[in-house]
């Protein structure tokens, strides 16, 4: 039971907002020592862990290409391409982004989107713009809600799209861990196939919730924005 203290270290570390690398390092040392490993064995565990999980970090090899393309306007071109859908409502636009994010992640293009690359400069402003066109100036709460859902579309699309691609970190982690621990041979392709049903569910569930966002915004905030106009016409009448 005492080795479960390592889990406690992680919980306390994150709850007190220490740097995650430090938390994980300390939790590893504590758990290893409590689990009866000698200090040498703990160091060896960190070394072996790093060596066998290198596959998680190899996506760095794609950064020079993406960086080169961004220098030449990849993001601007993506903006132009998505700009053609500017007449969509907030919910439809975000649902479309969810689908796009999921498909591109499934193709392995996980770093094409992301909170810094697409959500802040592109997705959230377009989603807000669509809402403003419909409801007029947005109250702060509506703005927060739209931005939160923009971030959620990116996360859901990424998480439940990327596992359909073969060379993604989590698939490689599964095969790496299982094949070394249990002396078996799992193929990444089989794992990727079993990720498809959940990917379809994720698109349906979150897509439906994003589409409903339009009606929610209308009910919660729409009246506030249209009311002055109605008052004005009534006053004129």
């Amino acid at each position, binding site marked *: 039971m005492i080795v479960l203290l390592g*889990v406690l270290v992680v919980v306390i570390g994150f709850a007190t907002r220490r*740097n995650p690398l*430090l938390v994980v390092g300390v939790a590893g040392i504590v758990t290893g020592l409590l689990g009866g490993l000698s200090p040498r064995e703990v160091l060896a565990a960190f070394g072996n862990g790093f060596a066998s*999980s290198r596959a998680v970090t*190899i996506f760095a*090899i794609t950064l020079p290409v993406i960086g080169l393309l961004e220098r030449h306007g990849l993001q601007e071109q993506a903006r132009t391409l998505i700009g053609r859908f500017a007449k969509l409502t907030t919910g439809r636009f975000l649902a479309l982004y969810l689908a796009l994010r999921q498909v591109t992640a499934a193709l392995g293009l996980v770093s094409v989107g992301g909170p810094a690359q697409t959500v802040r400069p592109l997705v959230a402003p377009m989603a807000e713009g669509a809402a403003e066109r419909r409801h007029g100036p947005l109250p702060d709460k509506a703005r927060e809600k739209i931005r939160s859902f923009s971030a959620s579309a990116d996360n859901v699309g990424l998480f439940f799209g990327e596992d359909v691609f073969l060379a993604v970190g989590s698939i490689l982690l599964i095969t790496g861990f299982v094949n070394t621990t249990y002396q078996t041979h799992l193929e990444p392709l089989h794992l990727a196939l079993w990720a498809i049903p959940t990917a379809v569910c994720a698109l349906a569930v979150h897509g439906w919730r994003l589409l409903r966002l339009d009606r929610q915004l209308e009910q919660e905030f729409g009246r506030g924005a249209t009311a002055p106009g109605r008052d004005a016409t009534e006053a004129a009448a």
Partner: protein
Amino acid sequence: MIKAEWFFWLVGAVFLVMAAQMLRDRTNPKRVGSAAFWGLIGAGFVYSSWVVEKRAPAEPLGVAVLTMAALAGFGFTGRGEVRTTSTEERVRSAARLGNRLFIPALTIPVVAMVCAVGVKELSIGGEPILQKGSETILGLGIGAVVALGVGMVLLRERRLSTPVHAGRSMLEAMGWAMLLPQLLATLGSIFSVAGVGTEVGELTTKALPEDSRYLAVIAYCVGMALFTMIMGNAFAAFPVMTAAIGWPVLVEQMNGDPAAVLAIGMLAGFCGTLATPMAANFNIVPAALLELKDQYGPIKAQLPTAAVLLGCNIVIMALVAF
């Protein structure tokens, strides 16, 4: 035969070159610490080859890993000025190149798929071209190298240092977050060596009635989600929960299909990632980037979806894995 280790050396070499560039970058106030951090990762990537083959001790690498964690954890790493093009230059370039810009980006997944599905079967003189079992990793590497070539020709870029500088800027922007998944995977493996998985497994098997397949499926999926919420990352929860229930109970005892059990188990963990502030890079960082007053805004938007999808995963696993 093209070996996976060659590719790891290439990645290590790229990190080392970038570390050398960082050391010379005077716009970075913490250039020495940054160079040390990325240099250690690069050297670790190469040294790991001998650790994996058990021809070198793993302890020095362990010291290096803890040093990296300390360097980044105590704030010794930083970033320099980004050398890049202006917005006007990019807009003009995008207008000129149009959708051709997407060609190199799409080259990576296409080549990776071709390697994983097609080249995998090819062999020269009885020896497979790509190392067996590593076709997908090699596909990603070959894809990235080919895409870089295609991109440089398409964009008429002559100097290799330009893309390396551009990639380095992205690396610096990600900072320590880049190492976290690998360290969390390490923590997961230490947890399993120390017997955390067995402890959790004993607790759950005591609580689970005999031969109850559906309860075991629920325990694995819900356990993955809960443990992911605690650890902040499904990668770290996976080895623990798999050692506890996934492999011994669902695969060995109940003859589940390992590929289905493990793939869907990981996705159940992702439902936990959607719901935890500890997955900082997905939930807290976006809230900060989007200047939200409520830092839990994204989590609140994701919670209902996470709950429904956890249920979906349980049903799918119960239906297809046995």
